């Protein structure tokens, strides 16, 4: 997947002008937010349920290495082959070589954001192995060669006319239709054949349970169960932070995940794999590989603040409550992860320098933080990134601001600490500043400060500053 995080503003402008996207964003996020609230209300104490889930995720981050070791030991004891990958190259090399060794012609993919992060599909396809996304939204996004619009519903904004044209061209649909149900059925027919003859399936992992060495997948469509059950070889890819301590913990987080994600109490299918199939079973994988992917996360672990990003369970609730996301949709975030969680994660994995606008495009309203079942404090993270960026932090790849901006803030800081300098400055600037005033308001200044005034107005400076007026009043009173 091409990384377009540096085109954030350009893409946001384009999306804000897209009436289809806007109409959609006005409709869907509020509906899902309402469904989430209703689903959370099924708990006797929704706040306690959220707090407990947050505590589990906090513990996962604090105990990450020991939980991963426990998971690995238990998985191996059950017959799983555990593969560790430092980066995308190692992960993709393993998957590709396995597919080549087994003579695989194509794979089906269960929805896996980490595989988008790694660009696994591109590697397979370049080497002559087809990779079919089978989650309906991912399938559509893949065929249209578009990034995901929403982490849960990647193509939910795409018009039915576009999908109809697409399916007729690429999915063997014979009769034109714009009925979503008929389109869904056409996709079922097309992909069913792929599932039937599948020899190797690739999935993500929602949770990896340390206590038992099991992996858990959550879905509504059945494409993940099919990807796991039909072929002889199953590869499930997880980033480090997917681990949870116990089965009970996993079940609790499952309840929060489903409610926050789609407003369901539970998704249609939750499948828990502990090792490959037994010898006497007719379906299920003979070989089960779990690929544990680092891709920059272990480098973050020493930063006690940044690593809180590892709490995220990819539920998408933050997207549905974010006023920025609700205006621009998923495309501007430019990578596998969008919305507030993308703003938290992308800068850490790609560098603060390549994601300059992502952690700045936030009003710090905190709606995301309020609903997050993992307890991530998004606004605090963004302030942290901004400060690290401005300081040019080498570990996080901060860029520093340009010399003019740095200079102006140095002058501002100095003047703020020296009242005589402040007052002198105000008197000197006033005539130049007020030249731009119309009806007592400055709404535009061309040149150096043009950008700042693009969305902000300031009053004109009065003929006398408060200090000057006070001096006069004191004189008159004495």
């Amino acid at each position, binding site marked *: 997947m091409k990384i377009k995080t540096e085109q954030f503003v350009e893409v946001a402008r384009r999306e804000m002008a897209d009436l289809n996207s806007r109409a959609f964003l006005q*409709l869907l996020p509020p*509906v899902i937010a309402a469904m989430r609230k209703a689903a959370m209300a099924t*708990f006797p104490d929704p706040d*306690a349920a959220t*707090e*407990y889930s947050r*505590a*589990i995720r*906090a513990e996962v981050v*604090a105990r*990450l*290495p020991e939980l*991963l*070791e426990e998971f690995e030991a238990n998985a191996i004891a059950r017959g799983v082959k555990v593969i*560790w990958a*430092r980066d995308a190259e190692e992960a993709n090399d393993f998957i590709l070589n396995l597919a080549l060794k087994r003579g695989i012609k194509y794979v089906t993919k269960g929805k896996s954001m980490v595989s988008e992060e790694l660009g696994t599909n591109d590697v397979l396809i370049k080497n002559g192995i087809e990779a079919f996304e*089978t*989650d*309906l939204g991912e399938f*559509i996004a893949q065929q249209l060669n578009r990034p995901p619009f929403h982490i849960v519903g990647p*193509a*939910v904004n*795409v018009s039915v006319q576009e999908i109809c044209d697409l399916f007729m061209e690429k999915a063997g649909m014979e009769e034109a239709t714009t009925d*979503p*149900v008929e*389109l*869904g*059925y056409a996709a*079922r027919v097309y992909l*069913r054949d792929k*599932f*039937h003859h599948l020899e190797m399936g690739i999935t993500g992992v929602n949770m990896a349970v340390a206590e*038992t060495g*099991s992996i858990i997948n959550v879905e*509504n*469509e*059945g*494409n993940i*169960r*099919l990807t796991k*059950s*039909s072929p002889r070889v199953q590869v499930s890819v997880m980033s480090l932070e997917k681990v949870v301590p116990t*089965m*009970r913990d996993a079940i609790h987080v499952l309840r929060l995940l489903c409610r926050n994600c789609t407003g369901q*109490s*539970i998704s*249609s*299918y*939750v499948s*828990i794999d*502990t090792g*490959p*199939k*037994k010898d006497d079973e*007719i*379906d*299920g994988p003979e070989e089960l590989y779990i690929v*544990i992917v*680092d891709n920059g996360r272990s480098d973050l672990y*020493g930063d006690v603040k940044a690593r809180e990003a590892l709490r995220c369970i990819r539920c998408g609730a933050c997207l549905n409550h974010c006023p920025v996301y609700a205006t621009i949709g998923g495309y501007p975030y430019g990578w596998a992860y969008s919305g507030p969680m993308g703003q938290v994660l992308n800068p850490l994995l790609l560098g603060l320098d390549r994601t300059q606008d992502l952690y700045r495009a936030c009003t710090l309203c905190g709606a995301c933080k309020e609903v997050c079942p993992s307890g991530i404090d998004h606004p605090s993270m963004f302030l942290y990134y901004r400060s690290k960026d401005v300081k040019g932090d080498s570990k996080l790849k901060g860029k520093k601001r340009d010399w003019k901006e740095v200079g102006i803030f140095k002058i501002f800081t100095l003047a703020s600490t020296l009242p005589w300098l402040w007052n002198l400055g105000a008197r000197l600037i006033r005539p130049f500043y007020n030249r731009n005033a119309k009806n007592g308001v400055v709404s535009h200044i061309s040149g150096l400060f043009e950008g700042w005034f693009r969305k902000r107005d300031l009053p004109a400076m009065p003929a006398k500053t408060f200090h000057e007026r006070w001096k006069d009043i004191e004189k008159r009173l004495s």
Partner: protein
Amino acid sequence: MVRNARDEILGKLRAVHRADVPQRPEVPSLNETAFDREEMIAKFTEALFLQTGVVHRVKDNQEALDKLAEIAKEEKLEKVMASTDDVIAPLDLPSWGKENGIQILTAGDFKDRNSFKDAVFDEVNAGITGANFAVAESGTLGLIHDRDQARLISLAPILHIAIVPTERFVPIYESAIEKVFEDINAVPGQFTFITGPSMTADIQATIFRGMHGPRKLIVILTG
């Protein structure tokens, strides 16, 4: 010396000073744990109904077979794949099938995976299974997959019929999980929670049932 990926990743993580593990609050409780069996059945039925599942309640195995015959007629069933689990096996579906003009196939009829897949994907119009658990909290079935409960039977056909004795009701998921993972040496390769038919809302947020799995789920509760 080149470290392998595992040691390098774990090494970096372990090199960081281990922070104190934050104290957890108390585990929040759930209402369903106080339900008696009839309350569990009511909650299950209501929840599954909201997911468009159909729930029938019958007295015993004979009534279950009668109900099955009704369903077979309505759904125009011709060829069916059935589990041989401990709920389905005693029903002797092959005999029932002969009486009702329906061909019953089981995983044991197939010599290998590929021929089994051909049948379960292309030839049958329903899958009939038992279930190990019926979880009240969300109208959820719990299936342990093994030789007698192949995974694809409850997944590939367009219709899934599940027969569940009411003794198998539990209030919450944890009750099922406890039993499934009781003996770590006897844990199934796959355990599945099924709640309603397969579905998606990925096209314009319009709900569609039967995306890749069954379009319809019918549950027959016995006892």
